[in-house]
């Protein structure tokens, strides 16, 4: 009897275990009316089944019901995930997720393929490959490792090229070092131009062929020249152009005055001086100028004597030309100043002819009539 009781007990235990196990086995199954849809790549489960509205709306049953929904969904997803191909790394099992099926918009548009530069095209056509260059190069002249580029390379080059041989066909007075520097500048500028041209080509801009340089390579001198040009291109030719707070207007720009040569033959100089001398030593008497001068002086003195004032020198306070009384009289008569001067010229000539006797107003040689003396 005891044995059977034990047996019964054991049997019931076994039964319990079996039922438990079977329950657990069932527990990974998920049965739904409409099958769940998966996007394993995104770990996404879509449940299209109709919900138990009552269970959802009632706030008491809601949490439990929602949890059960979630649990079923996740359980189904796990079954899918565990069936994926796996591999073990670092004591952990990894599964490779498949590609996502949900269409999600991208963050940025698909990049356009970059156009190859001229060099890249050429290299591709010729089949050239990029060769990795070392940072340092063995220099057999200096007997040490010199960097391929940079400040230290320039210093090393200076060390090496402290002297330059002048070949036979080159002008001995030419500065070879300056020439080298200039050539290097040209090479750098050319490279920069080509780089910018590549960029322009990729952005589909137009580039002028000549006279282009980038912002970075302009020396302060070049920038000064550019600024001078921009100032000069104003209505006042830069004279009344206001400067910016810290701007320094560069000096020495603009048209330079050309001085003549001091050394060399002095033929041009001699010619110039002779011409000046000729003008100075002229014996010709310009009659009209001499006469004008004479008249002026006489008139001034006469007027001053009458007025009784200081002799007014050239600059008159009233401004303008100094007009004497006789000038005004002449203009009143409607003859104009020059007309009166002409009369005076004829007067003086006549004086000269008569031998310097002033005949005066009334004494005309060929006057007839009037009160005068009768001959």
């Amino acid at each position: 009897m005891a044995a059977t009781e034990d047996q019964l007990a054991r049997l019931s235990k076994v039964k319990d275990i079996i039922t438990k196990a079977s329950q657990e086995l069932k527990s990974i199954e998920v049965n739904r009316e409409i099958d769940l849809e998966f996007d394993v790549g995104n770990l996404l489960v879509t449940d299209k089944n109709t919900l138990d509205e009552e269970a959802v709306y009632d706030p008491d049953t809601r949490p439990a019901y929602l949890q059960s929904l979630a649990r079923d969904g996740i359980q189904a997803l796990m079954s899918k995930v565990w069936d994926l191909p796996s591999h073990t790394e670092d004591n952990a099992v990894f599964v490779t997720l498949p590609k996502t099926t949900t269409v999600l918009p991208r963050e940025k548009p698909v990049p356009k393929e970059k156009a190859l530069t001229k060099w890249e095209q050429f290299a591709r056509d010729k089949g050239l490959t990029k060769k990795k260059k070392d940072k340092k190069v063995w220099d057999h002249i200096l007997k040490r490792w010199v960097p391929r580029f940079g400040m230290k390379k320039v210093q090393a080059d200076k060390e090496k090229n402290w002297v330059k041989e002048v070949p036979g066909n080159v002008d001995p007075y030419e500065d070879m070092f300056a020439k080298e520097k200039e050539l290097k500048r040209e090479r750098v500028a050319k490279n920069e131009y080509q780089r910018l041209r590549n960029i322009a080509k990729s952005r589909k801009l137009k580039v002028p062929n000549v006279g282009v340089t980038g912002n970075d390579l302009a020396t302060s001198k070049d920038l000064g020249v550019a600024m001078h040009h921009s100032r000069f291109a104003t209505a006042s030719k830069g004279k009344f152009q206001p400067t910016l707070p810290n701007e320094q207007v560069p000096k020495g720009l603009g048209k330079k005055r050309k001085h003549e040569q001091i050394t060399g033959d002095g033929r041009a100089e001699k010619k110039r001086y002779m011409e000046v001398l000729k003008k100075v030593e002229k014996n010709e008497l310009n009659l009209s100028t001499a006469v004008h001068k004479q008249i002026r002086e006489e008139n001034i003195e006469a007027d001053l004597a009458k007025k009784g004032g200081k002799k007014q020198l050239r600059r008159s306070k009233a401004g303008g030309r100094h007009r004497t009384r006789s000038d005004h009289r002449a203009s009143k008569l409607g003859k104009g100043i020059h007309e009166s001067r002409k009369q005076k010229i004829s007067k003086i000539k006549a004086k000269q002819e008569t031998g310097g006797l002033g005949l005066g107003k009334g004494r005309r040689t060929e006057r007839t009539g009037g009160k005068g003396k009768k001959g």
Partner: protein
Amino acid sequence: MTVMQRVVKPKNPRAKRALVKREPKIIENTKQCLFLHGKKTGEFMRKCIKDIYALKRQDSKLLQSQDQLLPFEDILPVERLAHEHDASLFAYASHSKKRPNNLILGRMFNHHILDLIELGVDNYLGLEDFKNKKITVGNKPCMVFCGTQFEDLVDYKNLKNILIDFFRGVEATDVRLQGFEHALLFTATDDTIYMRSYKILLKKSGTRIPRVELEEIGPCMDLKIRRTKFASDDLKKKACRQPKHLKIGKKKNQSRDVFGTKLGRIHMTKQDLGQLQTRKMKALKKSSAKAKATNNEASTSTAEPMEVSQE
């Protein structure tokens, strides 16, 4: 002296790397998210946004309070912020009498707004309201969408898309089997969407596939769709355009023989025999031919001592 149009050139490698990171790519970076809130949001909404930020900490930025933004009226400030931080998702929390407990979710394409949806938050329970151990930060969540509305109604469909985009995290290829920790549930009824967040516990079952048990941890909220502003069809199409992935073509003209050696076939162009190089080939020279002949003779006869020494 012409100077060319200014080209933004990075001054050091770090700047260059930052620029390269922001460029459009074939395989894109994980979408960054921006969490914003206005000046008068109130504690409720601030807690809410902080909790969602906690879920997405790896790929998001929580900014300090902004001047009042009205994304539905003027989206430019948001676009500008997103451009600065290189973010294409954003969540903006606000609170007003007219729109209490407002949450606006949006996404961008090429730094311009794509979709915008305004949700009202109800019955909110934050992370601190569930007193249990949470999950590791940056965990990729498993998402469950329940309810027929997500298939039938346009608004719900778009919302589903936005939510997937929002919570998906990194586009992972390999996942550790023990790494499934987080589960998000979105249940749609006629008027509300219930969002729940659980921790996944994997229990032993009889088979190799574990039994899943859930424990509620995270923020729990009831959302109501208020206003929407979805992208037009052509913009959507443009945004969803995928690049042509480089197809690995079949390698032709290659084969392996029985011993495993790789054999290849080369197809030559027709050789113009008239253009063959015969001038500088030593083998074809007459003198060498003569020398060869003498050599052959010498090998047979032992007359000349020179040949013998060579041997």
